[in-house]
């Protein structure tokens, strides 16, 4: 079962490279995504945790939550991709800023890498060994770099290069962290053992505290680079703004979570070793820095895809703060992962629709959405409300839970900074979002009557947003159980 989750997309991905027919390849993409999603749904029926490969691969509560998000988003993105690839012209496209022509990379590479990317992310989520986890995280970087460089354009090339180099170096630090962790298992009084998570947790008391702390720091910085925590986030806005929108949606909604999961795995070891407080404080520090940094930059941005990217940095900060506070806040953070992924993916997909019509990423150019792209405009407005944490969307609930956790623990300073950053980000994003929804586009030569929108391009983000709305109004019991079980391993009392 776990093997199938990894192998189906991997095999389909490899098959997609040489296929000659576009239609067949797109069918393959959707079939693989559907099969993956069906398997994940089936996994909900099996009592947790279950293993494969003698415990190296495991689906526990945390993996099931992240796996469901990843698989659901991938299905959404692949449906959107069908429409996107159909719309994207074979002829060279004119750059709106500099007026030169650029084309796209072959579709075989795009779809092949997309499927391999899913396989790598699945491997990250189900791996139960710190070494395999590292290999899989690096594999996600390698398979997604060509996706960012889908448009043959100098800006996407620059973004892909920065992404590849910064993330590879960051993740190399995490590898060193893994080795430090291995040293920690031999340095303490306990017996030497492997880096399998259950073994680490079981023997945590015997780990050498100094080496464990150093390992945690390296892993936090290493995977934190990939997760987009400030100040290691520099690749993120570039990669998110220059890649095709459906790739941005996957990067933001699924990939960042995978890196977050890697940090969470390390945190569970720290909690078991009785040093959970150290890890939590570090997470709060990085989280608040990310939130503050992103909020400050959000004010001055004029590129709406970059705005969404910085909002991801902010939300990754919120996740780190939530885990750092522990207890109710940790459960809130787990819920927030789900809410943020759904909303952000929907927003990026809608941004793709906007970009396709306006051909500009500037907030001041892309105005009057409600008049010109009727459905996308409404979705954009709903998404903006949701991402800023307004009721009745799910993000409101999860952000409130994190705040409640901070107040219940008497962390007034943390709560203050958290609220301030949230408020600034709310103002900045809402301002830009509203400007885009209303008004009239005056600089761009586009028709002012409504455009016809294809069904898939609006139905997919609409479904995601309805999901967030439902989560804000009603919490399904199995999901709540899962969230609680996932948060329980992170300590902090519940």
């Amino acid at each position, binding site marked *: 079962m776990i093997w199938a989750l990894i192998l189906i997309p991997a095999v389909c991905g490899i098959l997609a490279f040489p296929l000659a027919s576009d239609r067949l390849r797109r069918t393959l993409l959707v079939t693989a995504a559907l099969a993956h999603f069906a398997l994940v749904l089936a996994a909900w029926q099996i009592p947790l945790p279950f293993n494969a490969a003698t415990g190296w691969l495991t689906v526990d509560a945390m993996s099931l939550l992240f796996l469901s998000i990843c698989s659901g988003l991938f299905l959404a993105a692949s449906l959107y991709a069908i429409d996107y690839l159909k719309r994207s012209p074979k002829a060279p496209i004119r750059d709106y800023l500099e007026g030169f022509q650029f084309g796209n990379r072959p579709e075989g590479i795009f779809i092949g890498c997309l499927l391999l990317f899913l396989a790598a992310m699945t491997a990250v989520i189900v791996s139960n060994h710190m070494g395999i986890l590292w290999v899989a995280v690096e594999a996600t970087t390698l398979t997604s*770099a060509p996706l960012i460089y889908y448009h043959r354009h100098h800006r996407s090339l620059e973004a892909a290069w920065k992404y590849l180099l910064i993330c590879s170096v960051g993740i190399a630090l995490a*590898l060193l962290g893994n080795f430090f962790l291995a040293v920690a298992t031999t340095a303490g009084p306990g017996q030497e053992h492997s880096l399998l998570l259950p073994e680490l947790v079981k023997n945590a008391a015997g780990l050498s505290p100094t080496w464990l702390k150093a390992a945690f720091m390296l892993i936090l910085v290493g995977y934190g680079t990939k997760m987009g925590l400030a100040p290691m986030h520099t690749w993120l806005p570039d990669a998110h703004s220059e890649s095709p929108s459906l790739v941005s949606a996957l990067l933001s909604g699924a990939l960042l979570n995978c890196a977050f999961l890697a940090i969470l795995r390390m945190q569970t070891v720290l909690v078991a070793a009785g040093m959970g407080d150290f890890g939590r404080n570090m997470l709060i520090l990085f989280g608040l820095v990310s939130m503050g940094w992103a909020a400050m930059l959000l004010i001055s941005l004029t590129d709406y895809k970059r705005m969404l990217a910085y909002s991801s940095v902010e939300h990754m900060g919120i996740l780190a703060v939530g885990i750092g506070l522990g207890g109710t806040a940790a459960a809130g953070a787990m819920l927030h992962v789900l809410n943020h992924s759904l909303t952000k993916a929907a927003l990026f997909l809608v941004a793709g629709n906007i970009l396709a019509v306006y051909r500009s990423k500037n907030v001041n150019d892309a105005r009057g959405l409600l008049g010109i792209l009727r459905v996308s405009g409404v979705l954009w407005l709903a998404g903006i409300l949701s991402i800023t944490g307004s009721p009745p969307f799910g993000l409101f609930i999860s952000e409130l839970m994190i705040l409640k956790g901070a107040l219940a623990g008497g962390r007034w300073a943390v709560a203050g900074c958290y609220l301030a950053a949230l408020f600034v980000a709310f103002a900045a994003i809402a301002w830009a979002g509203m400007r885009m929804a209303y008004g009239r586009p005056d600089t761009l030569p586009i028709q002012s009557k409504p455009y016809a929108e294809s069904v898939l391009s609006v139905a997919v983000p609409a479904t995601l947003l309805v999901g967030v709305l439902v989560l804000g109004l009603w919490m399904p019991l199995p999901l709540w159980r899962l969230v609680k079980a996932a948060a329980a391993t992170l300590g902090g009392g519940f």
Partner: protein
Amino acid sequence: MMQALGEFLVILMILLNLRLMGVSRLGACVQTVAIQALVIGALALLSQPKPGFWTVALVAAATALKAGVLPAMVHRAMRETGVVREIDPLVGYTLSVLIGTGMFVLSLMAARSLQVPSAAGTHWLVSGTLFTMLTGLFLIVARRKAITQVLGFITMENGIYLFGVTFAIHEPWLVQAGVLLDVFAAVFIMGIMVCHINREFDHIDTNRLSDLKD
């Protein structure tokens, strides 16, 4: 005897790091990285008291990859882009070597404060690995050409790898093979991208890749 050989190799590795910081010709840099990979392979074997068949095979595979395949790929990127030297680096060569010496002192101090459990490592070895990682990071930050940055990445990976095989010997072979495969793929993709950057921009100066900013 073994001890003396080990110390000699560590010193050689340190000198190679300094050479990396001091030369401008990329060909020489690639050569240095390849020699360093050989030295690291030898050190990795020396550090094991009784290496089993799998350990030897893995170290041999890693060394072949890092001393042969990766430098060949970088060479190919060099040929295609026609870039042979690092002209006007962000940090000059003399200063680089001076900074390198400073970083070496830092690594020595860090190695002393880290208490390495196994008897296998002298603290020379720890400081050597730390210094190699720092050299790699320095090359990534202080040089303009994308190729030099790729070399910096390989160097950094080399240092981490040596630390891994020396002190974390019980890493299963599956993980080691996975790491090797990832490094290979990373350098492969980087090589392709260097060629694309060259074609798109007519240069591979990464400090001039600055369209994207806030």
